[in-house]
């Protein structure tokens, strides 16, 4: 029982970082009904910028974090301009394929920038942890969980207490109606993209600091984890992204503990396949039929 609870705790901590990545996907999907496959690779490139200043200039961890987030936002803006702003209107497949080829471009840039395979990534605090009863909380997990909760609270305030949040929700509800109300969908989409990149950069930093290393494969990995978490919870739903990320984290850590490392990814894909087939809108998908019809019409 102690094992079970301990793995659940570890799973929830990793899962909270997955939730943040899923939130980035959900925000973009919410306003555009499109999926940005280059989301993970743009986080990876931001992290490479961070590790670059860490390796060459021996920068402080907080500076690395800042550069990671700023780099992710810069790359995110580039992706938005090339794959989404340039291909507007009804060509959703074209923009998804484009975001995929941009992915290859970003990976190539990362390997040109730093030709080695693996680079160190600094942690925010020296390793250690908190012990409560029989349970052990790793310091980086505590940090991840705290930051994730902070980001969630701030996102909630932003979406429900500001004019920008109102505009974003309006565009995600109905872009045409929002445009008639004097909202510029293009600008809201751009800002949502920046916001998603900001959250992604934070999540990327937290995940990489817990691993203490970064490789070019991180892009692929992050895109998959975010997509799975979003799909589990329900596309375009913010609580869904959070719940989906947490569930994914717990499933992964439990199968890793009880069945071994080989089954970790297998089980998460299996769960994803089952959820998509049995409950296509995701676990918390709201207005499933309508959203699905809308997504189908646009792809």
């Amino acid at each position, binding site marked *: 029982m102690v094992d079970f609870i301990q793995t659940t705790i570890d799973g929830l901590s990793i899962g909270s970082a997955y939730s943040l990545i899923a939130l980035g996907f959900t925000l973009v999907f919410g306003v555009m009904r499109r*999926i940005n496959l280059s989301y993970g690779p743009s986080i990876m490139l931001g992290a490479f910028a961070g590790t670059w200043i860490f390796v060459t200039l021996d920068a402080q961890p907080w500076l690395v974090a800042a550069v990671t987030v700023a780099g992710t936002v810069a790359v995110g803006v580039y992706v938005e301009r*090339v*794959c989404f702003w*340039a*291909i507007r209107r009804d*060509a959703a*497949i*074209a923009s*998804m*394929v*484009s975001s*995929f*080829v*941009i992915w*290859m*471009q970003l*990976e*190539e*840039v990362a*390997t*040109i920038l730093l030709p080695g395979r693996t680079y160190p990534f600094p942690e925010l605090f020296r390793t250690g942890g908190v012990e409560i009863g029989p349970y052990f909380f790793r310091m980086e997990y505590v940090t991840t969980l705290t930051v994730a909760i902070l980001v969630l609270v701030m996102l909630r305030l932003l979406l429900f207490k500001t004019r920008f949040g109102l505009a974003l929700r309006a565009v995600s509800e109905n872009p045409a109606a929002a445009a008639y109300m004097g909202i510029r969908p293009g600008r809201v989409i751009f800002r949502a993209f920046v916001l998603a990149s900001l959250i992604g950069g934070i999540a990327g930093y937290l995940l990489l600091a817990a691993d203490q290393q970064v490789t070019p494969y991180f892009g*692929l990995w992050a895109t*998959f984890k975010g*997509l*799975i978490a979003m*799909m589990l919870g329900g*596309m375009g739903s913010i609580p869904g992204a959070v719940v989906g990320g947490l569930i994914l984290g717990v499933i992964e850590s439990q199968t890793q503990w009880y069945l071994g490392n*080989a089954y970790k*990814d*297998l089980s998460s*894909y*299996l769960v*994803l*396949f089952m959820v*998509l*087939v049995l409950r*296509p809108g995701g676990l918390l998908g709201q207005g499933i039929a309508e959203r*699905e019809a809308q*997504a*189908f019409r*646009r*792809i």
Partner: protein
Amino acid sequence: MAFYFGLLQTIGIHTLLGLSAYVLLLTGQLSLAQVGFFAIGAYVSGILTVIFEYHIVPGLFAGALAGGAFAFLVGFPALRVKGLMLVVATIAFSEIVRLFFFNLNWRVMVNGVEVGPDSTQGFREIRFYAANGWDTFDVVLFIWLFVIVVMAMLWWLDRVRAGATLRAVGADELAAQSSGVNIVAVKVTAMTVGGVIAGLAGGLYAHSATYVDHLTFSVLLATFAVAYPILGGLSSVFGTLIAVIFVQGILIEGMRFLGDWRNILFGLLIIVAMNFRPSGLLDGNVLSRIRRMIGHGKPDGGGRHA
């Protein structure tokens, strides 16, 4: 010369892979499961020729059948979902297949040598061609025989009722259903045919590469598989072939001199192509112009739009 034969083999195999996605795209389904069927075909035919020492032809057919069987089984649940959900569900399927082969370890002694899939080390020594004295030219002929047969069948399909039914489902599912088309049957059939073609392509790939491992069957390859027909256009089977030649021959091989920068330019060129020709390189207009040039043109143009 060997280089061009190698390129011809790659183009042939990728054309088959693209055509397997083409069949599904005709019904409006964007599936990234093709690479999963491709992997199943590669491993099944490789295991048959290496471990059980079959001839390559039954090996390939078994691989194709296995691909088709899995496509049939996956088709029923997966086609309950549409659009983006289908994309992600099929990615999940391909990854499950990839991770299965990543963990598959089946080593046996054949003629004093240990062969078979060796989980993370991959499946080496699929040496049917070399062991039977086929040179690269024979292999090119063998692969293109299958490419031509499959393309001829799909070309013929477009001229009979079944092809019209496929396109009807792709154009408007609801209208097709109202006209009495059984949508589930059509979609599952398209999935199965796609699975057979992908399994065949996988078997051919395994034997011409002589070595496969799980990394080959990544989502990157799955995306290439759907990108070919989308880039080439769905108006004709030849669109896929043209796209494969454009991507493999010109973009990948022709720009090798650019070194590391190739992938960066490669991405941009595809985006430019998608921007200028959103319905593919070979769309209905180009096709009807070509038909008129050959003299088969109908006065109304005769171009069908996907």
